[in-house]
């Protein structure tokens, strides 16, 4: 009996009129937990009853405490007939089971009825007294903290990251039980809501047990989903990342909101290249479709193995900081082994996190994904959900092997989802292959900093993650590698796709933007296995086309990396929908993307050529415009000083040791560049020509359509930015105004005989129009950024396309000077700051003497074949030097050197050196350090952000917290609210609601119905948060919004599942002014040095 739950019903208000005669209500309340029920007295004739009940006490197991919700039912007493239910409140008491979270739940809750919606409010008080239970075999996992946030929650530090958690529970769906034919819709809905509440409680408890087994105390990145499999049942599944979290003391809290300073930044050891060699697999970022059609009787497997290579980037985190040198070799290996074993002990080295403490992420390989088409059948034994487990196991294995092929031992930013249509189910999993720092995986790593200090890698964190983790010789997929433009020591790919957030320390040029690829594919209606086969045949083509679209759009925006990539493929009866969303950025470390070249198939046809020229011009114009729009002016920092330059080259070449001489073709190209580079006139062109332009061949109408659709994407109107990641690179002065919203649009396709093309157009327009609507609605918030734009597509019925979006609009300061906030640097560990300071002092001296800026980037020119390109090789033509002239406006801060020609020259020298020198000594450590310090100083130079202004703005907006009787609760899909600190996490919010109506017209049609339902869901989330004592929900997401309608019968039903973390936030008080001053001084110093 380890727990006592106490509940008190205080009062009600705004109750509905239940007695028409008196226009009043005789209300009483039933309080139920498990099988125990208490009742309050009837409070007669009032719409605002004051029950002020005694404390109802439930003595229960903590297992039940975790599984069961407290169920409060408000009823209208009727002497002669049955009492009428007014509505219910389910209260999840999980937050009370954790000592650090809330201690009491107290507040007004909306009384919810699945037919009528919110009907008044009830004031409830709930407390839990937990007794210590030392039973080792306990079934409960009280005290394990859950976070939806996919990063280490602010205010905590990760002492250890244990790894992947997964669990699923299945049950029969009450909606499909025989009894449903005789019970009321209300009873059926309530049975479903209750069941799901129970199931998620159970799931959470089971996950918690796994965490305890692993020795952790928290789940981060907890993601719970429902699969409504119809006849075959109801699956609730969850994944997460087990961690051991430690609360930061208040002293360190100020800095902790950005990073827990525990991060050991040692990416010294994990060069995966050796491993890569051992691995014979050469696949890139692969997505595989494995579709064994499952059928219980025949167990026939139709399997189809597709490998669609996705352009992926990887970086090698070669500890080029020479301090470790050769002698570090064995140690590296040792550490590597430790890491590997630590990871390999786990079945799945997966992490649901999308952003990490500094140093955690060593290299990123690229996106790995797997899909599988299954046929659903009834789950016979809910206690043994083996089939579903096996399905997921299969997919995870696939993901794991993809990651291995990329030379990576882990998958980060991992997520799973399903799309179900009738009996067909597509299971998808995706993540980003990565190499992680072993330190977080090992036991006893709590005393950070003592042991591994010597492997501390001075290579800039701003680019380290981009370096390829796989071996150049055995590239998993064809990619064009160049030396990192940031540190010049490691190879980087030409494009990088990831599912994670942009690492905070990454060096980015300009701003980012939302990039979407949209695709519709018609399919024939079919049943069973035939249907599954059709779908699995279509999948790879869809995936391929989505990637091509993404690639094209990325290039059109002159960007070279995607973050937060999320590809959703939804299945309907007669079509498949694919939507890929990501945030494009220009990573300073990666080469500038080539342009897009249009090629006609037939030459000689004048009109055709004219047409092609026009399109080419449009594309070139768009690229130029986008460059300006997103402020993509890669810093052209080059050392004029030949000495510096030489040193650089030496170092680079040294890195090149052991790396293969590029294929002959590469060489020839390089030589050609060399010869051209002497021609000053052609320099501008060369900058573009140095890379293969992406060529689109117009050979049929399809291609024309594709190009048109490429160009139809409107860029956001002035003052707006958009992204689907946590924050927007290039925007730092956020103000505190946030507006979270959910928008749903459903389109009915009236014309049954649509072609793929017109369908694509319709779908694209639907998404574009939604974005346009957002911009219009939020125009008063300008300048503002829509962050975490999360699109969800579904085909609820034949001829219906549903898109639901949740996002947050955040305003930022107008006088945005693209500057980074000082805090970024302040918050790093003290020692690191010192280091930086030292560097930049060094830099000042250096630059004053040389009067030049050493280059932080050198491009190697390697011919590029993206994996995507490989598949359509026939369409690819290698073109150089005819591209659009590169924007050569050189930032006034940088030494004005023409970058294009320079890059070419560098690469050529490099090439020559490579050809000659087979063994060259390591470059001096100093050079590399300086490079890094430069990178730092450049970015620090950019952040003289006027703190005062930020403050005055926040003061202005603070009055929104006026004397309203209802606590304002902010909601955001992000893990933080700008300008604030989360001082306490109160627990997870995970709610599931059903709403049904039989008077659709009266409720304003299906729009009116859904509008009020979404508003009600928001209201209930806010009320629960407020009752926990919180004032915000972070990491909020609407995971499901399933709408079924039947306008002819005047009926509709909708299911919504939302989750998030309840927090208490406070306005950020002043930053340590001294630190920012130091930083300012630093940047000034750097600026002086640069000019």
């Amino acid at each position, binding site marked *: 009996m380890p727990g006592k739950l106490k509940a008190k019903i205080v009062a009600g208000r705004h109750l509905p009129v239940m007695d028409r005669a008196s226009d009043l209500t005789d209300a009483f309340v039933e309080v139920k937990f498990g099988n125990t029920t208490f009742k309050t007295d009837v409070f007669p004739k009032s719409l605002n009853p004051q029950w002020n009940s005694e404390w109802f006490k439930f003595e229960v197991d903590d297992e039940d405490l975790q599984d069961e919700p407290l169920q409060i039912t408000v009823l209208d007493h009727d002497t002669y007939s049955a009492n009428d239910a007014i509505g219910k409140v389910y209260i999840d008491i999980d937050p009370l089971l954790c000592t650090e979270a809330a201690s009491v739940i107290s507040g007004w809750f909306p009384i919810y009825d699945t037919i009528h919606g919110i009907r008044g409010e009830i004031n409830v008080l709930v407390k839990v007294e937990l007794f210590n239970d030392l039973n080792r075999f306990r079934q409960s996992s009280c005290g394990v903290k859950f976070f939806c946030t996919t990063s280490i929650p602010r205010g905590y530090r990760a002492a250890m990251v244990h790894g992947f958690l997964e669990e699923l529970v299945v049950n029969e769906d009450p909606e499909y039980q025989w009894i449903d034919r005789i019970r009321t819709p209300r009873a059926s809905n309530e049975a479903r809501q209750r069941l799901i509440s129970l199931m998620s409680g159970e799931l959470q408890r089971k996950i918690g047990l796994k965490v305890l087994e692993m020795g952790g105390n928290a789940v981060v990145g907890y993601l719970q989903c429902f699969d409504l499999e119809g006849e075959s049942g109801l699956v609730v599944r969850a994944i997460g990342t087990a961690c051991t979290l430690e609360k930061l003391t208040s002293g360190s809290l100020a800095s902790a909101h950005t990073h827990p300073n525990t991060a050991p930044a040692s990416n010294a050891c994990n060069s995966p290249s050796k491993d890569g060699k051992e691995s014979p697999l050469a696949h890139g970022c692969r997505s595989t479709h494995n579709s064994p059609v499952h059928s219980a009787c025949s167990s026939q497997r139709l399997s189809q193995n597709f490998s669609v290579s996705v352009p992926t980037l990887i970086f090698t985190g070669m500890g080029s900081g020479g301090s470790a040198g050769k002698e570090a070799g064995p140690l590296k290996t040792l550490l590597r082994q430790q890491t590997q074993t630590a990871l390999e002990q786990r079945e799945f080295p997966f992490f649901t996190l999308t952003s990490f403490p500094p140093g955690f992420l060593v290299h990123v390989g690229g996106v790995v994904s797997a899909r599988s088409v299954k046929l659903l059948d009834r789950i016979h034994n809910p206690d043994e959900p083996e089939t579903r487990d096996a399905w997921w196991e299969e997919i995870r294995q696939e993901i794991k092997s993809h990651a291995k092929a990329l030379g990576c031992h882990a998958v980060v930013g991992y997520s799973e989802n399903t799309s179900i249509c009738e009996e067909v189910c597509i299971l998808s999993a995706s993540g980003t292959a990565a190499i992680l720092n072993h330190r977080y995986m090992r036991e006893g790593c709590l005393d950070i900093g003592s042991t591994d200090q010597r492997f501390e890698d001075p290579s800039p964190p701003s680019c380290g993650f981009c370096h390829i983790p796989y071996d150049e010789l055995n590239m998993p997929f064809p990619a064009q590698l160049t030396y990192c433009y940031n540190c010049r020591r490691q190879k980087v790919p030409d494009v990088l796709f990831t599912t994670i957030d942009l690492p905070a320390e990454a060096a980015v040029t300009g701003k980012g933007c939302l990039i979407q690829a949209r695709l519709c594919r018609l399919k024939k209606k079919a049943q069973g296995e035939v249907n599954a086969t059709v779908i699995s045949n279509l999948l790879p083509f869809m995936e391929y086309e989505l990637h091509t679209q993404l690639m094209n759009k990325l290039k059109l925006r002159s960007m070279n990396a995607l973050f937060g990539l999320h590809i959703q493929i939804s299945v309907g009866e007669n079509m498949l929908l694919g939507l890929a969303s990501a945030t494009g950025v220009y990573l300073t470390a990666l080469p500038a993307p080539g342009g897009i070249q249009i090629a006609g198939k037939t030459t000689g046809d004048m009109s055709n050529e004219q047409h092609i020229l026009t399109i080419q011009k449009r594309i070139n114009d768009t690229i130029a415009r986008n460059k300006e729009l997103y402020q993509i002016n890669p810093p052209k920092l080059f050392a004029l000083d030949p000495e510096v330059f030489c040193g650089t080259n030496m170092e680079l070449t040294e890195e090149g040791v052991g790396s293969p001489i590029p294929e002959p073709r590469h060489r020839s190209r390089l030589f050609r560049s060399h010869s051209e580079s002497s021609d000053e006139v052609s320099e501008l062109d060369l900058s573009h020509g140095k890379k293969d332009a992406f060529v689109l061949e117009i050979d049929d109408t399809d291609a024309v359509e594709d190009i048109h659709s490429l160009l139809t994407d409107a860029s956001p*109107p002035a003052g707006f930015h958009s992204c689907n990641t946590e924050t927007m690179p290039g925007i730092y002065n956020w103000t505190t105004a946030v507006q979270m919203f959910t928008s749903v649009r459903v389109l009915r396709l*009236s014309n049954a005989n649509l072609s793929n093309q017109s369908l694509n157009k319709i779908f694209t327009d639907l998404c574009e129009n939604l974005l346009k609507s957002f911009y219009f609605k939020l125009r008063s918030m300008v300048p503002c950024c829509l962050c975490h734009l999360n699109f969800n597509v579904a085909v609820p019925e034949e001829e219906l396309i549903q898109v639901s979006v949740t996002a947050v609009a955040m305003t930022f300061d107008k006088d945005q000077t693209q500057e980074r906030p000082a805090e970024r640097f302040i918050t790093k560990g003290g020692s690191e700051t010192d280091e930086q300071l030292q560097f930049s002092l060094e830099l000042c001296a250096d630059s004053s003497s040389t009067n030049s800026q050493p280059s932080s980037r050198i491009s190697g020119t390697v011919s590029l074949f993206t994996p995507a390109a490989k598949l359509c090789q026939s369409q690819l033509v290698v073109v150089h030097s005819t591209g659009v002239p590169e924007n050569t406006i050189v930032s006034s801060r940088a030494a004005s050197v023409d970058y294009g020609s320079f890059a070419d020259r560098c690469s050529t020298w490099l090439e020559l050196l490579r050809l000659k020198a087979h063994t060259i000594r390591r470059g001096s450590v100093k050079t590399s350090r300086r490079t890094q310090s430069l990178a730092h100083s450049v970015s620090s130079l950019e952040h003289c952000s006027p703190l005062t202004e930020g403050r005055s703005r926040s003061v202005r907006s603070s009055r929104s917290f006026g004397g309203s009787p209802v606590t304002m609760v902010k909601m955001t899909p992000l893990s933080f609210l700008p300008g604030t600190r989360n001082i306490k996490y109160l627990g997870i919010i995970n709610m599931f609601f059903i709403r049904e109506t039989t008077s659709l017209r009266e409720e304003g049609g299906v729009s009116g119905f859904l509008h009020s339902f979404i508003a009600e869901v928001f209201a209930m989330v806010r009320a629960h948060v407020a009752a926990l004592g919180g004032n915000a929900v972070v990491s909020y997401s609407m995971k499901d919004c399933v709408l079924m309608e039947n306008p002819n019968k005047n009926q509709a039903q909708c299911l919504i599942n939302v989750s998030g973390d309840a927090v208490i936030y406070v306005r950020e008080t002043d930053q340590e002014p001294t630190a920012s001053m130091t930083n300012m001084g630093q940047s000034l110093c750097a600026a002086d040095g640069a000019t």
Partner: protein
Amino acid sequence: MAVELDVFVGNTTIMDEEVYQLWLDGYTVNDAVKARMDAGVLEECEADADVLLSDTMDQYRTFQMCERLLQSPAKLANQLLFQITPHRQVMLIERYYAFDDTFVREVLGKKLSKGTKKDLDDISAKTGVTLKSCRRQFDNFKRVFKVVEELKGPLVENIRQHFLLSDKLARDYAAIVFFANNRFETGKKKLQYLTFQDFALCAGQLINNWTVGAVDNMVEDMDVDLDKEFLQELKELKILIADKDLLDQHKSLVCTALRGKTKAFAEMEANFKNLSRGLVNIATKLTNTKDVRDFFIDLVEKFIEPCRSDRWTAADIKLYLTHYTNSAHILDPFKHQAVWDRYMGVIKSCIFIMYHD
């Protein structure tokens, strides 16, 4: 291909004040879209008509859902469904309860009943206010009327607290309630020149001086019903015109005071008896409900019209009424000074308000 469903819900409810006004004014969605386009919303940001339509529909839906709360504004502050900042709430309520002077002028003093509601189409046609807006305004009047009817305490204060209105708006509503309760006739042709604000000011005078609340502030309907005792006492004023000596004495006192002070002296002297009879007769008949209703028309017919035809200036009126009131105090046999002051104070103010040069 048709948009089957289109919703946008913000955590903080997004409401555009312009659209709100269009909604209040009873524009249909399509008319509102057109009005917004004409106002140039599209130019200020890159959007097209579809976006505008979608936005307008969303907002209309939001307003419709809010309407229930706006009808009992106190609920708006502690409801949970919509998260609206307090200053926004104030704006929403204030605008919801705002009304068109032209409309209210039509229903002022009428019974707020179903019957009147049926006439709203005519009123809408006459005033150019859309029927929808007329209905909202009419229902607002009725709702306020119903709520304050059962409350004790000062009328304006009750309205202000119950409907969270500004002081000005609460006073206007008090006037409307007061007029509706006493069914004052305001629709006659002779009264057409008076604006709602004229009547509202008069109502303020009546409420402050002639109701039960003017003497006792804790009874039901205290500010809505006229003080019956006072109305009875008014009968005593009859002596001023019934007693011939008294009337002459009164006249000579007033004339002495006025002589040489105004150009209209001759007319004043000539009309004194008529005017005095008019005013006193109004006073003595106020015990009849029917005559209460005709209070304003009587004032116009018995006093304002004769003065206007003699081209009195507002200053003349003021001068005359001041001396007329004060002289009665010197009349020896006249014992009802208190009642006289209470009566004439209001009459004086009302006539000042109603006398347009």
